[in-house]
């Protein structure tokens, strides 16, 4: 009760402070202008069928809060520095443990070549780096088939560096933008995968590793049309304690898992014309892991795609809709094979999640919006790699269909 009061007070304070801070967003330091920006969002989800996103949504849950604050400064003509702190509470995830979202130095030598280093948001598809910023789009939740919010940590940022640039093509063929990166990914222990593991009584203490990849996007000569492709490779190691599932009497024993092959391919298209915006993406995630210290192996083939449209009816009102499709094909071999039956039939609700969504967004002013969104889901895709539905919050078992009502408001300055 006390925690809820504190949270509501915080929300109220943010709502009141919003208009004030809008005017106080920069100051001078060592004769350089420092900009300060922030955002805050609060959501509520009510579902039928299953609890979703680790929240108790069957009863209605407002454990859907996030916020961030950043500071940045253009130090010289070519050098910019900045950092952003981020915090969230999404059901059982995040739990208000703050994190450094990004902190970087960016040096742009030329339009066609720049470098940035530090903790950097990972460029992957259209929205990976902006997935927390729901005020940038009409939807309250991005298509979970491609951007699962419970697995945000899996791709959100890396500690390392990027090279990037933009090249204008000859003969009016448009522009090419590229980003290539390498670094270390580190998941919070309050993120989706460790939470998934806790369903077995396991405790993940560290999860992360090398991450490298590239993105290439083409602003085509057709005005408003962007095409792109991304590739992400990872070498992940997870460590912790887990029950010996083959010998429960042994209690908790050291557990480890490691990537054998872990990659993501993503292709995407965006088209904007007038008040209409259309997006579509396809992601394939291939995850071959050695489990339980190499005694077992998991081979997961996760595929997701969506098609979305958004239309601005007037300055204050936008509507949108998308269809999102997620499937998982997973086979475990080795010592744990007996405990994990193969998930190979993607027509089963356990191995897919098809989501039809309609939404409306009202902009109360330039900095504050309210959204209402409905999801009609078939399947719960709760295989050996999670996707929004967890057994811990669905101890009664899963229903094949889930409908969800999402309300969300967000502020930014």
């Amino acid at each position, binding site marked *: 009760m006390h925690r809820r009061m504190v949270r509501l007070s915080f929300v109220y304070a943010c709502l009141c402070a919003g208009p004030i801070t809008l005017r106080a967003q920069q100051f001078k330091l060592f004769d350089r202008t420092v900009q300060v920006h922030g955002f805050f969002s609060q959501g509520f989800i009510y579902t039928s069928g299953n609890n979703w996103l680790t929240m108790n949504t069957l009863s209605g849950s407002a454990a859907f809060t996030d916020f961030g604050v950043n500071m940045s400064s253009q130090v010289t003509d070519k050098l910019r520095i900045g950092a952003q702190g981020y915090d969230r509470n999404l059901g059982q995830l995040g739990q208000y443990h703050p994190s450094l979202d990004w902190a970087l130095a960016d040096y742009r030598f030329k339009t066609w070549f720049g470098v940035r280093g530090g903790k950097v948001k990972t460029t992957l598809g259209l929205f990976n780096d902006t997935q927390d*910023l729901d005020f940038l*789009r009409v939807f309250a939740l991005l298509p979970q088939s491609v951007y699962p919010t419970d697995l945000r940590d899996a791709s959100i940022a890396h500690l390392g560096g990027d090279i990037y640039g933009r090249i204008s093509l000859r003969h009016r063929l448009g522009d090419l933008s590229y980003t290539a990166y390498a670094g270390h990914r580190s998941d919070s222990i309050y993120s989706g995968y460790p939470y998934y593991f806790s369903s077995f009584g396991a405790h993940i203490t560290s999860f992360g590793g090398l991450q490298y990849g590239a993105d290439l996007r083409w602003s085509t000569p057709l005005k408003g049309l962007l095409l792109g492709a991304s590739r992400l490779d990872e070498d992940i190691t997870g460590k912790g304690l887990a029950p010996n599932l083959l010998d429960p009497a042994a209690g908790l024993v050291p557990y480890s898992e490691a990537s054998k092959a872990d990659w993501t391919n993503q292709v995407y298209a965006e088209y904007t014309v007038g008040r209409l915006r259309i997006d579509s993406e396809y992601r394939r995630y291939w995850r071959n892991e050695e489990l339980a210290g190499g005694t077992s192996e998991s081979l997961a083939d996760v595929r997701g795609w969506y098609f979305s449209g958004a239309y601005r009816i007037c300055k204050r009102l936008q509507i949108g809709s998308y269809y999102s499709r997620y499937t998982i094909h997973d086979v475990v071999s080795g010592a744990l094979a007996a405990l994990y039956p193969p998930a190979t039939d993607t027509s089963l609700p356990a191995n897919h999640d098809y989501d039809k969504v309609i939404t409306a967004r009202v902009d109360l002013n330039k900095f504050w919006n309210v959204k209402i969104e409905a999801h009609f889901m078939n399947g719960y895709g709760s295989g050996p790699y999670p996707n929004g539905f967890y057994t811990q919050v669905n101890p009664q078992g899963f229903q094949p269909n889930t409908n969800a009502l999402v309300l969300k408001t967000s502020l930014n300055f």
Partner: protein
Amino acid sequence: MKSRTLLLVAAGLMPFASAYAPARDVKVIANSSVKTDSISAAELKRVFLEQNNSLEDGSHVEPVLEKDGPVHEAFLQDYLGKTDDDLQTYYRALVFTGRGSMPKQLNSDAEVVAYVARTRGALGYVSTAATADGVKTLAVVHPGNFAQRTLLTTVEPEYPETLKQLGIGGTVRLHLIIAPRGNVEGVEVLGGNPILAESAATAAKRWIYSPTHSRSTLDVTIPFDPH
């Protein structure tokens, strides 16, 4: 008598000029530290989308915007192809991912001119009618259907004294055909006050561009500021 005739002609043509003017009644201004006198529409767009922070001549630039109003809307529509809502969303995506800063956004032409005048590298836009003391006005070059050309020699168009005294200004859009060796061999008026357009066309015929292996076309916007 002659000037009176000119005045009548100008007055008679004003309805046509003003019908054209609202969407194009914008001039691009820059701080005196910016070396160039002209900027391509493509480069202007890249500057305002924070994809470039320096021009081809090496000048550092930073964009300055108006917060709202018809000049702002016209500039976004003509040069960026975005609505204000789209542009603000674009800037916020940069700001919250560490990939850019929120550009300076000011309330009026006067504020923009004052800021651009005192800020190294500042590049903004104001109404054509706005007083632009202390800043330079850049000609905006719209690339045609061939390779981009660099303007080597410019001849300032003559501003008809009568129109200037009457405070009649605006922008003129010309379509240039440039020979391989760089001379302007053809000029077509696309819009603007006809008297100003004639003056602009006469001057443009004497411009010299960098040579290339083939003929090029360019659309050029030339502002006439009566102040």
